C-alpha cells in the first residue's frame, strides 16, 4: 500500500519535472513545478514530516509560485525563442553530463544499506509535528532562525532597490 502510494507520487513528481523542460511557455513550466511541489508534499507526509509538508504547500506552492506566476504575467510571458544555434554544443553537452551526474548519484545510493524506514508507529512518532519543530527551532536552532530573519530583511530591501524604476 505504502509502496504503491510512493510510486504514484514519485511518478507524478518526475513527470511534472520533465514537463517543465518540455514546455516552451514559462507559464506552463511554472504550473508543472506546482505539481512537483504538491507531490513532494505528499511524500513528506509519508515521511512523518507533517509541518514541513504543510509549509511546502503554503510557502512554496502558495507564496513563491504566486510570485513566479505574477512576474510571468507581468512580463507578458514571451515565448522561448528557438534561436539556439549559438549554444547548440552546450545543449548537446547536457545529456552526457546528466548521465554522469545520475551515475554518480546512483553509485552513492547503491552503497546505502538496504534498510527500510522505521515504521510509522514507532516510539519516535513525535518527530515531525509542529510542537517538536517549534521547540527545536526556538531553543537549539535559535541563532540560524534569527539569521534567517536578517536574510529576509535584506532580500526585501534588495528586491525593492533592484525592481525600482531608475528615473525616480
Amino acid at each position: 500500500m505504502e509502496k504503491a502510494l510512493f510510486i504514484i507520487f514519485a511518478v507524478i513528481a518526475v513527470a511534472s519535472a520533465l514537463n517543465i523542460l518540455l514546455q516552451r511557455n514559462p507559464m506552463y513550466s511554472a504550473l508543472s513545478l506546482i505539481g512537483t511541489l504538491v507531490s513532494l508534499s505528499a511524500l513528506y507526509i509519508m515521511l512523518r514530516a507533517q509541518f514541513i509538508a504543510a509549509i511546502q504547500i503554503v510557502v512554496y506552492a502558495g507564496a513563491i509560485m504566486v510570485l513566479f506566476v505574477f512576474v510571468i504575467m507581468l512580463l507578458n510571458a514571451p515565448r522561448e525563442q528557438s534561436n539556439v544555434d549559438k549554444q547548440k554544443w552546450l545543449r548537446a553537452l547536457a545529456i552526457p553530463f546528466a548521465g554522469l551526474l545520475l551515475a554518480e548519484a546512483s553509485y552513492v545510493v547503491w552503497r546505502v544499506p538496504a534498510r527500510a524506514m522505521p515504521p510509522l508507529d514507532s516510539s519516535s512518532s513525535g518527530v515531525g509535528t509542529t510542537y517538536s519543530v517549534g521547540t527545536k527551532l526556538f531553543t537549539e536552532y535559535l541563532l540560524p532562525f534569527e539569521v534567517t530573519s536578517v536574510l529576509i530583511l535584506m532580500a526585501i530591501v534588495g528586491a525593492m532597490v533592484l525592481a525600482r524604476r531608475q528615473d525616480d
Partner: protein
Amino acid sequence: MIPLSWYLGLSALLFTIGAVGVFIKRNAITIFLCIELMLNAVNLTFVSLSSYFGDMGGQLFVFIVMTVAAAEAAVGLAIIISIFRNRESLNVDDADAMKL
C-alpha cells in the same frame, strides 16, 4: 516499508532533471524554476534522512532552505524584471554585457 534508497534515488533524479533544465533552457524564468526544482530535490533528501535517523535537524534545515529559496526568488525575479526592462528580452543569451 519503503527503502531509504528509493527516496534518495527519486531525489537524485529530480536534481538531475533540474540541472539539465539549467543547461538546455534559454528563458531566464524557466532556468529559475529549474533551480527551485533542484532545491526541492535536496529538501527531499534532508527530510528522508531526518525521518530515517529520527533526528529533527534535517527538517529544520529544510525550513531554512525554504526561507533562502523565498529570498532568492524575490531578489532573482527583481533582477529578471530589471533585465527585461533594459533589454526587452528574457533570453539569457541576450544578457551578454560581461562577455569577453
